[in-house]
């Protein structure tokens, strides 16, 4: 499992691996929003929690097809399927690699983007915390969506239609936690609910994703 994780990380950080692309996309979203709604600080501060979370969702979505598509094309996915490592484990490791290359940089860079969008300082810890707890669920659900559509030639658009509705609960609770933080309230309740969703997703989704992969490899 460690070897697989290291392999995926090495592939992602190599040239052409797309490492940091999600982060750049996130930056572009945060740059475009003020052009769209105007540069007034109070407007931006009000919509910042939502923009940051939706931006994180989209940045995560962009790189999802890389989870399985390349391995599917060159056949290493078939090797993984015959390896002693159970498919569920392989899926979980691949989702973890996706999180480390997309989710974790977003979490670390989020305060900078928060400043760009005039997010109140009180909300910054909530932003980092909610992204830290929420993005693993995004990667895992994304791995499920990628597993469903891996055999399709143009699965990207279909995958976003399948995956984005699954992101709704995480988005609701995540953005709500940040919003409460920005209003000076306690965001623990949405945070705990979101952590619950994340844990359930991490526990159950590898099985669903592995089942979908097995069907596609049949």
């Amino acid at each position, binding site marked *: 499992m460690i070897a697989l994780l290291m392999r995926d990380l090495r592939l992602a950080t190599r040239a052409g691996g797309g490492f940091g692309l999600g982060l750049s996309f996130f930056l572009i979203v945060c740059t475009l929003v003020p052009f769209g709604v105007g540069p007034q600080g109070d407007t931006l501060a009000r919509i910042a929690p939502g923009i940051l979370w939706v931006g994180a969702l989209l940045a995560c979505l962009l790189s999802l097809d890389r989870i399985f598509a390349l391995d599917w094309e060159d056949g290493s996915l078939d090797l993984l399927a015959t390896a002693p490592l159970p498919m569920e484990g392989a899926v979980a490791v691949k989702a973890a690699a996706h999180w480390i290359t997309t989710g974790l940089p977003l979490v670390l860079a989020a305060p900078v983007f928060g400043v760009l969008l005039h997010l109140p300082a009180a909300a910054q810890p909530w932003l980092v915390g909610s992204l830290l707890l929420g993005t693993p669920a995004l990667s895992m659900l994304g791995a499920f969506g990628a597993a469903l559509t891996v055999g399709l030639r143009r699965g990207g658009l279909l995958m976003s239609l*399948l995956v984005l*509705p*699954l992101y*709704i609960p995480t988005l*609701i*609770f995540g953005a709500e936690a940040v919003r409460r933080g920005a209003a000076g309230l306690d965001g623990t309740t949405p945070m705990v609910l979101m952590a619950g969703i994340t844990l359930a997703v991490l526990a159950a989704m590898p099985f669903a994703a592995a089942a979908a992969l097995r069907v596609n490899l049949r």
Partner: protein
Amino acid sequence: MSIWEYANPVKFMRTSAAILPWVAVAAALTLATGLVWGFLAPEDYKQGATVKIMFLHVPAAMMAINIWVMMLVTSLIWLIRRHHVSALAARAAAPVGAVMTLIALVTGAIWGQPMWGTWWEWDPRLTSFLILFLFYLGYMALWSAIDNPDSAADLTGVLCLVGSVFALLSRYAVNFWNQGLHQGATISVAPGDRISSVYSYPLYLCMLGFFLLFVALLLVRTRTEIRRRRTAALLAREVRG
């Protein structure tokens, strides 16, 4: 005699052919009676004539949820017992369910415009129906995207299971979100406990009519799917032989 006998497509085709005309006629009769009765019902003192939208809105909304549950059950049967009729029934039900969801959303908007003064409000009920509609769309898109029928049935079955959990989760998460946004704006579309029998009787009839309509459509569509599967098999045999 067990229900699993109908997993045999031949048996299913024979039985459904016998039932279908009766169900269709019954659906037409109940719907016609219920809708005309509802149309002739007196106007509400507050809502005026718009109260009659309820006779389309409530049954459609009810069926939209029930059809998803039916798809969940048939998907489970397919995944566990591998009965093809079950998977095809789930596939056949999805567009009907999507249309029911759309009817509920559109009639709700038409009712909401004069009553709430807005076509659309991000109310928990409305929002969760929109999410349900998205799930229907994704489910149908996945069915049509995959060539191999067995893989398609497997993958959409898994999606239906996961989607059910998340549709339910969204339903309650949305409640949370809206309370956090503006508390106390609970606008319930459901008929209350003290709805007058002037409205409730035609409403029950319309619900029954919508249910029978769904059964009839489901039978027709499942039969079409089975026939399509058969022609595909025949064509494949001809090409090979």
